[in-house]
């Protein structure tokens, strides 16, 4: 058994928290973007690493959240106030509900045979992307531009947040909260049952757990978190487009999480940060070769290090009650 590494985990968050003291505004903004992807990666890590459900279309939920936020704050949803708070609520509720219903449809009764889940989610994301491209009300191919920044208060006293530092702090806080919530969920009885289902679905069912409900619920949680990341994305980038709904982003997040390590939240989070940073540095130099290198790296890690590159370092001990002997 590897040594637990909770000090390292705390250190990572501490370093991130201290970044504003040493990092300039430009890079602070960049780091905030990366952490949004990191939150997104944690959502996939939860459903895949804990639930064993390999979702190939996770960007569907990210995009749903982003569009929900964009449409709300731009006042394009009739009867819905143009407020960021409502936007966040919708960005959590809409993907969560879609995932829960899709989950129930797929897992109820005899349920969908494992691998089919990946194909179905992939198909859903690709089709959603095509739908968004062809739906002019939500911006069609060009997407939605000029999404207002996060605003507190209203009227003359309203405070708009577009400086890098407050954005960084908000995203950092969001990432930490999401991390702690998902970690808590992992280490709760719910998480234990989920891993039980992941390892042996039949046995969990025999023990009386409603497997379909657990899977659908965890799928919904992951989708809501992805939607939340999407909403943050919409605010920070001030635009959304069909590309964030579909194939390409779904692929990217899969790579971040697989390379980082699907079973450890922080590893998935850092996987996104590291891959994206390296991409920022190298994609100019390598051009088209960058994706080729990334693809090959990904294959190698799947075959040789299926648990990911960072997971062994950031693995945490199980809660006291769940530790086995030795």
């Amino acid at each position, binding site marked *: 058994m590897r040594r637990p590494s909770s000090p390292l985990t705390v250190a990572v968050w501490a370093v991130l928290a201290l970044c504003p003291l040493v990092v300039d505004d430009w890079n602070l903004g960049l780091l905030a973007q990366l952490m949004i992807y990191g939150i997104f990666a944690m959502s996939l890590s939860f459903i895949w690493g804990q639930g064993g459900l390999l979702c190939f279309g996770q960007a569907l939920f990210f995009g749903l959240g982003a569009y929900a936020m964009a449409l709300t704050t731009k006042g394009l949803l009739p009867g819905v106030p143009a407020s960021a708070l409502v936007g966040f609520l919708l960005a959590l509720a809409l993907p969560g509900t879609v995932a829960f219903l899709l989950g129930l449809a797929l897992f109820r009764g005899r349920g969908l045979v494992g691998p089919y889940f990946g*194909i*179905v989610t992939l198909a859903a994301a690709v*089709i959603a992307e095509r739908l968004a491209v062809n739906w002019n009300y939500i911006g069609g191919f060009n997407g939605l531009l000029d999404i207002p920044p996060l605003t507190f208060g209203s009227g003359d006293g309203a405070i708009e947040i577009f400086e890098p530092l407050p954005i960084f702090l908000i995203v950092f806080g969001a990432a930490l909260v999401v991390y702690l919530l998902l970690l808590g969920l992992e280490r709760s009885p719910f998480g234990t049952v989920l891993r039980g289902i992941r390892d042996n679905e039949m046995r969990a069912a025999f023990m009386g757990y409603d497997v379909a409900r657990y899977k659908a619920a965890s799928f919904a949680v992951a989708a809501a978190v992805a939607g939340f990341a999407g909403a943050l994305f919409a605010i920070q980038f001030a635009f959304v487009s069909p590309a964030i709904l579909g194939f390409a982003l779904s692929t990217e997040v899969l790579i971040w999480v697989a390379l980082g390590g699907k079973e450890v939240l922080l590893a998935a989070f850092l996987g996104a940060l590291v891959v994206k940073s390296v991409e920022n540095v190298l994609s100019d130099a390598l051009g088209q070769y960058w994706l080729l290198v990334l693809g090959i790296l990904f294959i190698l890690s799947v075959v040789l290090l299926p648990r990911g590159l960072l997971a062994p370092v950031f693995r945490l001990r199980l809660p006291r009650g769940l530790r086995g002997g030795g």
Partner: protein
Amino acid sequence: MSLIFLIGLDATGYVLALLLVCIGLVIIFGMMNVINLAHGELFLIGAYSVVYTQSLGAPFWLVLIVAFCLVAFIGLLIEQFIIRHIYHRFLDTILATWGISLALKQAIIVIFGPASQQVVAPFAEPVAFLGITYSSYRLFVMAMAIAVTAATFLVLYKTKLGLTARGVIANRQMASCLGVNTRRIDRLTFAFGSGLAGLAGAVMAPLMSVDPQMGVGFLIPAFLSILVGGAASPVGAIWGAAVIGTSNSVIAAVWTPVIAQILVFSLAIVVIRILPNGIAGWKKK
């Protein structure tokens, strides 16, 4: 009347094209239990091999053979260096083939560039029959799809090699204990399924704009087809392509392609829910 006939012919064409793509997919999925997400890119390589060999002035029939052999060889390499190590880790085979798909597509972009290429059909004269005129090459593609499917069935059910492959699928350990080199069969099956993808890409290339994204377009309907039809046997590919292809082209003709995709996807989920083993699995019961 002739319009309906024309729509019917288009639908048939789409169904058969889908079948052509599915048949290699279902061989690898149904027989080796590997969901090959790189199938679209193997298709792509088949199409690009037409671009390349045509530029050298090779005759079309030779182009088809080259496409099959080249992609079969690539499949052999993929099996030998990657898939072989992860047969027992099912989800990882999906991930690995996903990575392969990414790498192959990017390799194509590096070699041929991201722009779309034009491929000339070896013959395109419209033929007139039963009151309509129709592209002769489209008719040729339909005939090829039927021929390839028939040939696949012959190999599987009428040859010793096919019997061996089916035996390995039914009971790998027993087949090995009877003296069958199962590794060899794995390699051959994967190469054969890959080669069929390449052949499909080559045959379809003159009908499509050949660009690095073309593989993805067929991948989703193809996968839905084998889920709906049943992945366990090649018969499933026929059922699936028929159901998905027909509903897709009919709905697209009546409404729009996007609505068709959404409806067909929902239909596929309903069918998979009711018949988890697909149409072929249900017929067998």
